[in-house]
């Protein structure tokens, strides 16, 4: 399900088509809980020159002119009693698309994972099913190889992912 956004931003165009790296816009994903929503300045880095009169981008230009942030509607919501940190997941080899789905094919952003406790815990119990090499974390085209189970276990050891603490209550509820 998608939500009505002030601008119909397409990850399909920017990621799948142009091949921009996730971090071009989501600059804090490697160092903070919050992946970072780009300031209007980031959009205008290109759109000061490209599609400058497009009606679709009028809210972006207005945001820059009036120095008012664009009011995006949140797509992935977690309850307030859940602690979630992007940076630790990225650092330990959880790829963007593992939770965000085929974002490079989404014309409008939608929630790809159920984000239920069961879903979180499944992975916290068996991270070897999802872990990928760090240099593939931002690759939207990555898919698990045939030997994923073995690769995942190897990466768990290499990245010091310890399952015995990953299901502690305080890991996600603090």
């Amino acid at each position, binding site marked *: 399900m998608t939500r009505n956004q002030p601008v119909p931003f397409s990850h399909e165009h920017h990621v799948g088509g*142009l*091949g*921009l*790296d996730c*971090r*071009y816009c989501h*600059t804090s994903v490697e160092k903070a*809980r*919050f992946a970072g*929503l780009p*300031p209007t*300045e*980031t959009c*205008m*880095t*290109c759109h*000061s*020159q*490209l599609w400058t009169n497009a009606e679709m981008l009028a809210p972006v230009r207005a945001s820059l002119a009036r120095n*008012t*942030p664009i*009011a995006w509607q949140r797509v992935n919501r977690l*309850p*307030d*009693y859940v602690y979630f940190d992007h940076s630790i997941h990225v650092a330990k080899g959880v790829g963007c698309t593992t939770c965000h789905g085929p974002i490079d094919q989404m014309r409008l952003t939608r929630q790809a994972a159920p984000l239920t406790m069961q879903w979180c815990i499944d992975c916290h119990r068996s991270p070897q099913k999802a872990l990928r090499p760090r240099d593939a974390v931002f690759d939207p085209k990555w898919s698990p190889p045939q030997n994923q189970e073995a690769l995942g276990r190897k990466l768990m050891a290499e990245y010091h992912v310890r399952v015995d603490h990953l299901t502690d209550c305080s890991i996600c509820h603090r």
Partner: protein
Amino acid sequence: MIERLAIPICAALLLSACDDVSMTQQNRYRTFTRAALFDNGTEAQPLPDGVVAQGDLRRQSRSVQRPQVNAELLKRGRERYDIYCSPCHGLSGSGDGVVVQRGFPAPPSYHGSRLRAASAQHFFDVITNGHGVMFSYAARVDPSDRWGIVAYIRALQESQRANVADTPELRTRLP
């Protein structure tokens, strides 16, 4: 009588304010949430003029002190270059990135004589302040990463003029 009623009435009023007892929505602001408390309606507040934020001075010192150039810095520089610079400047620094192919004015190639002669500080300053139609990347790229990118640009420049004879051990890896 009023005193005796006051406490239960207060308690009832307080409880009725908590229509969500699941704690799904708690009374606090998360990053970038709407915040009626502030005039601009968001939790994210611009710093008042003259405020020095925590970490600003350390950040500034990383602008002045150049890190040692080693393989690690170059590797980091390449990664950051590929993320933030290659969309316009191209993976090889020729100024033919994908955004340029879509109509953005082409930046100069790093391999021309002017930019080959330009100082490291020049590249650092352009990343920091922007130049021409290029916006500032100061908010996106940390100063130490800017130095990494500068080092990698030097490597790109060298790569275009390298002689295979100078690096015999690499010859075997060429296609």
